[in-house]
């Protein structure tokens, strides 16, 4: 599945595409909500791995505008809940993720993103 937590890790890996290859931008996405168990410790500890601005923008692209633009210093329970929802409960089922640098589109179908490259694109 592509949830925003995964989206925040993925980057374009087309041969030679090494700058501005993150974050990928969602295109024509279909979204499905699935409840997931809230684990505040997981969210709190995991957060330093994420790029905040990329997350906020990606969340907007899939219709979630609940996150503040700047990463707050204090993580209260309400914010952790919002992060949990944005990161763990929004599933991108169909669509694509497009590289802003080389325009390569990584399709998403049945919730599975296709990060395979054609032979000539492999670095």
């Amino acid at each position, binding site marked *: 599945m592509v949830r925003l937590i995964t989206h925040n*890790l993925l980057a374009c890996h087309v041969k030679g595409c090494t700058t501005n290859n993150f974050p990928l931008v969602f295109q024509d996405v279909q979204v499905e909500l699935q409840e997931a168990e809230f684990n505040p410790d997981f969210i709190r500890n995991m957060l330093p791995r994420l790029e905040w601005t990329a997350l906020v923008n990606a969340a907007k692209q899939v219709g979630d505008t609940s996150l503040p633009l700047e990463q707050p210093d204090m993580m209260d329970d309400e914010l952790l809940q919002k992060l949990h929802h944005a990161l763990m409960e929004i599933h991108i089922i169909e669509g694509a993720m497009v590289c802003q640098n080389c325009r390569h589109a990584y399709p998403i179908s049945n919730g599975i993103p296709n990060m395979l490259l054609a032979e000539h694109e492999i670095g």
Partner: protein
Amino acid sequence: MIVFVTVGSTRFDALIEAAISEPVLTTLRDLGYARLILQRGNSIIEPEESNRESCYSIQRYGVDIEIWKFKPSIQAEFEQADLIISHAGSGTILDVLRLGKPLVVVPNPTLLDNHQEELASALQTLGHLKATSIQNLASTIASFEPRDLVPFPPFDGSKFSNLIDEEMGNMKPVKSVTVVDDPQVHEDQYVHAVYDQIASHFSSTRYKVRTTVSSNLYRFNRALQPWPIIAKFLSDLPTGWIGLDSGAGNGKYLPLPADRPGCILTIGLDRSRNLLQIAQHAGSEPGRLITREVVWGDVLGSGWRSGVFDYAISIATIHHLASHGRRKLAVQRLLQAVSPDHGRVLIYVWAIEQDELSKRSIPTSDSDGSSPHTTGEDVFVPWVMSRQHKQDTPVVPTSVAETPVYNRYYHMFANGELKQLAVQAAEEFGLVIGPRGNVYDEGCRGIEIVQEGWERSNYYVELRRWVS
């Protein structure tokens, strides 16, 4: 009627205790079993003094019970019994099924490094026996319908090993092969195409329900138990860590750790989209759909931010790459994926040195087979559709062969080869090999080999990145 209970020579106190407990005995009595013969093996039984006896009899809840440490002729006991209750040892299971006797097995949950539960689940899925737990033993016996069991086919050796091959990731006898094609073309034909075939078999042919998680699919997933070292590696990781399972297959490691589900997040990457469709719901149960993060990709790709993962595992994957250079690159992709500061990597590959259970013969280039291997062996491992599968409509009808055989390519690693590969990959990646010490300049990057070894036909190595 007679019921025979055995734990072989193992110690399984809980099963012995359950077998002579009130709920089980009254259930048996109500079903018409007047005699219970029990082989306790090395189990300890209450009261303590009874363990000194090699055999004694008691009567409880209207059932005559004979308790033996070891029954002299166990084959005769199987033959005269109307029902057998056993631990899930493969020898006992095989003996009983070959006699066509109704069998209820209880895998010993305290055995970690053991195939018992996966074997029991696999055979239950095929309808040959009933698998249950200590807690449910009485209710299982009460509802058990021996007539519903699928007779075990006449023993030809292949059924059992096929089963082990398919359900447990073990192998049938293999044949030597030389990679002559381009390695990538070779992998396309002998790895990717085969796994897609195997996966579509499990997800669509044998298990027809695709839209929801069928209970069979759940059983298939559950039948594959994690290996102890892998389970421990994952369960030792701190809460909040994110990892990559590079070559995730059907996703058996994605739900781990079992004792702290959801405390870490493992993202599954695989070349087979069909396998990913199974992996996507790994660990789900009927009525409780769980969705995993899976990515369709190549283990030689790098479609993520460098160093973004805290850990990476590569289980039974790198041995499918058809050249040394590609295997080395796969290791480098793992090193690149994890944090330079604390990233952990665990790699498993198949070994030339195989364990006893699988009893496969590995062809070697040594004429007498006595000298140690150093470079590994390229082999084909046939995957054969078993009888049960063929009763369904095949996904891809094969024109010639009646029993489709798919050759899977493996590079079986020699002793020391995996460590050598990891060291070479790390050095060329610019890492110092060894524990983090004070001898290095600030900012020096390195990798420590935390552990390496052989476990059940596989070599493994665990690496940890560091920055001084």
